[in-house]
Structure formats: C-alpha cells, structure tokens
C-alpha cells in the first residue's frame, strides 16, 4: 500500500474515532429504579438507587432528595461498613454531577456484602435532623476477587521473571 493510501486510511480511522466519540460522550442519565424513605428529624428523605438490589462492587448512582428540594438545606452523610466500621468523618452531601437538582453519589460501589448503614444529617429551615438507612448489600457478582487479582497481577510476575533472568545473567559489581 502506498504512502498516500496509508495516510488516507489513518485519517479515516482518526475520523471514525473522533466522529463517534461525540455519541459515546453522551453521559448516561440517572435512572432511579428503586427508592427507600428515611426520616431525618423533621425532613423526609427519599433515597434513590439506579440498580436494585445492590450488590457488592457493582457501582450505581445514589440520589438523596429531601421533601421540598435541596435549595435551602445542607447536610452530611456517613457510611458504615458491615460490622460497624464507620467512615472517619461524615462527608458533606453534594449534588449529583449528572442530576444537579438532588444530592447523590455517582457511580459508587460498596465493596463489601452485608448491612451498610447510611447516616444522614440534614440542616434546613426546620432545624437539624438525623436519620439512618440500613441497606442490605448482596454478594458480589463475577469471579472471586482472589482470581481477579491473580489475573491482573500477571504483568507483575512477568516483570519479576524478567528481573530474575537478568539477575542470573549479569555479574554483581562490588565496589562503589
């Protein structure tokens, strides 16, 4: 193939790549398929999930919507893993980056199965209130993590093998 044809083919590939990138860049909307209710003092809070049931390691969008909206309110969220290990300090409730009229967590995965505790503190015109949601998280789908890690660390073992080969074939220098 001549140089001209090669250049044309390469330009075609680049064109296809960037031409289709626009479609791929259309970010998924937040689709809530299940909701739970939490009462945080005077505030009723609707917790939305983009997948249900929630499984360990499977990421999803969470939405947190107090009655009357988030405009005049602020708050914090603290996550506790199964077994009672709480996050060091509560994080502020923030707007969901793809659904800015509600609070949320985007593409977040809970790593362990079991009962997670979501503790909400909401501050607003009616004062402050705290509420808790106990969320059951099922076992992770897919292969066991040990196997996944074994597959993923093959390059590391390859690197070690390379080092061992080089080590055995080179002499060791002694003085500085």
């Amino acid at each position: 193939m001549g140089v001209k044809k090669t250049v044309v083919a390469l330009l075609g590939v680049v064109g296809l790549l960037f031409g289709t990138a626009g479609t791929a860049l259309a970010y998924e909307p937040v689709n809530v398929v299940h909701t739970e209710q939490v009462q945080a003092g005077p505030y009723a809070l609707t917790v939305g999930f983009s997948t249900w049931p929630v499984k360990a390691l499977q990421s999803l969008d969470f939405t947190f919507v107090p009655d009357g909206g988030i405009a005049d309110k602020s708050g914090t969220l603290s996550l506790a893993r199964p077994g009672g290990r709480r996050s060091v300090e509560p994080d502020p409730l923030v707007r969901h980056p793809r659904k800015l009229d509600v609070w949320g967590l985007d593409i977040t995965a809970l790593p362990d199965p079991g009962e997670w505790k979501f503790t909400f503190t909401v501050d607003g015109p009616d004062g402050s209130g705290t509420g808790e949601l106990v969320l059951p998280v099922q076992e992770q789908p897919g292969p066991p993590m040990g196997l996944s890690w074994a597959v993923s660390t093959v390059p590391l073992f390859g690197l070690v093998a390379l080092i061992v080969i080089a080590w055995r074939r080179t002499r060791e220098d002694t003085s500085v």
Partner: protein
Amino acid sequence: MDLTASRASVAATTRTVPRGVTAASFVLGGTVLSLTGLTWDIQWHSDVGPDTFFTLPHLLLYSGSAFSGIASLVVVLLTTAAQRAGRPVDPTVGGRAVAVFGRTFAAPVGYLISGIGAASFLIYGLWDQWWHGLYGFDAVIASPPHIGLLLSITITMVGAVMVFAVVRSRTWGAAWALISLAVLLTFSTVTAIGLSQIDVGNLNTVTIGLSFLCVLIVVMGARLLDRPGGALGVAVAVAVLQGVYWWFSPWATRVYADSTGLPLRDYVVGVPGLPALMPMCLLLVAVVIEGLLVLGRRDGRSLKVFGLVAGAIGGLLVAALAPVQNNLLYGNGFPQVSGIVGTAVAGLVFGAAGGLLGVRFGGMLRHLAPVREGR
C-alpha cells in the same frame, strides 16, 4: 520466546538500523502521554466525575500505549528484516537483539519489553471493558483490571528505561534515561495505590510501597550513570513533572468540563490528585544518596553497604514525611502515632531493600550494553 541466545548478527557500527533516536523518542513520548492521561483522568474523576470509554484523558492513555507499542513493533520488524538481509544490527538501538518465537523475530531487548507492555495493555483493556460491563463504571484506581493496565504501562516504561540505558554514554542518552526513570517513578506512585488492598492494621501500605519504589528508582539512576548526578537527575525530573502536572491536571480538567458543559463537583478539594501523591521530599532523598555515594567512593565502601544505608535513610525519609505532606496539603491532621511510627519503620526496612535492589538493577541496566563512559 528464546532469551538464551542472540542469533542476530551484532556488529559495532556507526549506522543504526533503524535510527535509534526517533523510535526511542516515540517510546518515551508514548509513556509521557500515558502519564499525562493518567493524571488528567484522576483529576477528572475527582473534580467532575462522569465516565465513558471515550473521554479525552482515556484517549491520551490509550494513544500513549499505542505510540510506544507501534514504535516498538516497527523497530522489531526493521531489526528482523535487517538481520535476515544480513545487514549489521546496531546494539545501541534498544540493546542486544534476542530471538523471539524461535528465529522468527530478532527483537532488541528494550523494545521487546516495551512492546510486550503495550500488547499486555491491549489485553487488559479488554479485561477492563468486561469488568465495567459487569460492575459498572466505578471510578476507582485499585480495581483488578486497572492495576493490570497500570502494570502493563509500567512494563512499557521499564522497556523505555532499557532503551535509553543502552545509550547512556551519550549526553542525550543519559538525560533521557534519567527522565524515563522519573516517568516510571511518577507513574508507579499511582500503581502503589493498589497496595491499599492489603490491610496491615494501622500501617499505611501505600506509603510503605512508595518508600520502596522511590528509593529503588532513584538509586537505580545513581547506579546507572555511575557518576555524580544520577540520583539528583531523577529527582529533579520528578520535581519538574510534579510541578507541570500540578498546574496541568486541574487546568485541563476545568477546560474539558467547560467544553462538555459539565459543572465541577461541589466541595472540590483543589489539590491535584497525582502530583500530591508524589513525595515532595525526593530532592532531599536524592541529595542524601548523592552524598553517600561520594563518601562511599572516598572510603572505598561496597555497593551493598551503600545501597543498604542510602535505601534505609531514603525509605525512612519518604515514609516519615508522608503524613506531614498530607497534612500540609489536605489539612486532615495526623493519623495515630503508632501508625506513623510503624509506617516509618517499615519504610526504613523496605527502603533498605529498595536501595539494595536499586544498586543491583542499575548494574543490570549497565550490563545491557557495557559502554565506555564519559564520551
């Protein structure tokens, strides 16, 4: 793959097959693209969020491996063609050529490694795609396929170091060898996050891993050049990368978010993710290592003693100063004293091991093509 014997006809010649500088530039340039894509991607997830396969930071990451991989493949094919045609093959282009798949290919060892890393990246890209299909687009670094991808790029970066180690007798070769080590070190700070999966009480396994890697690579730089400036050169290049990315990562993220009409997250911390991971005490560590090297030479010490002492001090400095750096940048306070002390002691031990290995690995790089120094 047969690494036992070189069947390529190797001859010292002034002619290069192919021209070494161009291919080497592509391999190193590819690794820099990968590193730039990574720092941008980390910042994107931290400050903006949404993920797809075709974000610009992802495209930089992919194209980095593509550049390095294609350049490596071209060198291997040209070397194979040269060998088959009976033309001399210059061993300063990527190192001694080794036979691959019997006698099918003659591959300069540096380009062979960088090419294997790029090919591995492709395979782990498929694994990552499958993973995201099953688990969703979780924006975590320490997922198994992400670590597989990062390790693949690391192998390409090791190949780049080997390519330049062969030409270290030339000024540009020495400078680029140190820069390629700095790129490897900077990139490895992210791979080290995978160590967070190992739970050892209140010890910070990521910091311990960083202590080991920093000392290992800086001592390698010192040993590779075997003259003053190797350790410091790596540390200065790391500092330059840290400075550039400190500005670039948030800037590129803001510009890209604006262009796609996405807002920044609420409560953006304002500290660039990857540059903040990099130890800021590395220049100090390098000065200590250079000093110890001078003392070692004066007193005729053994390389092992030098590696052990330099590594231990360097590892201790990196591990002990990490909480100080984190508190300065994020203002989160300090972890428990027992955790700080335990991590610092582990940093000293792993640093000593890193120093010993750094000396040996640097020596191994020198053996790739023993050349007359100081030209």
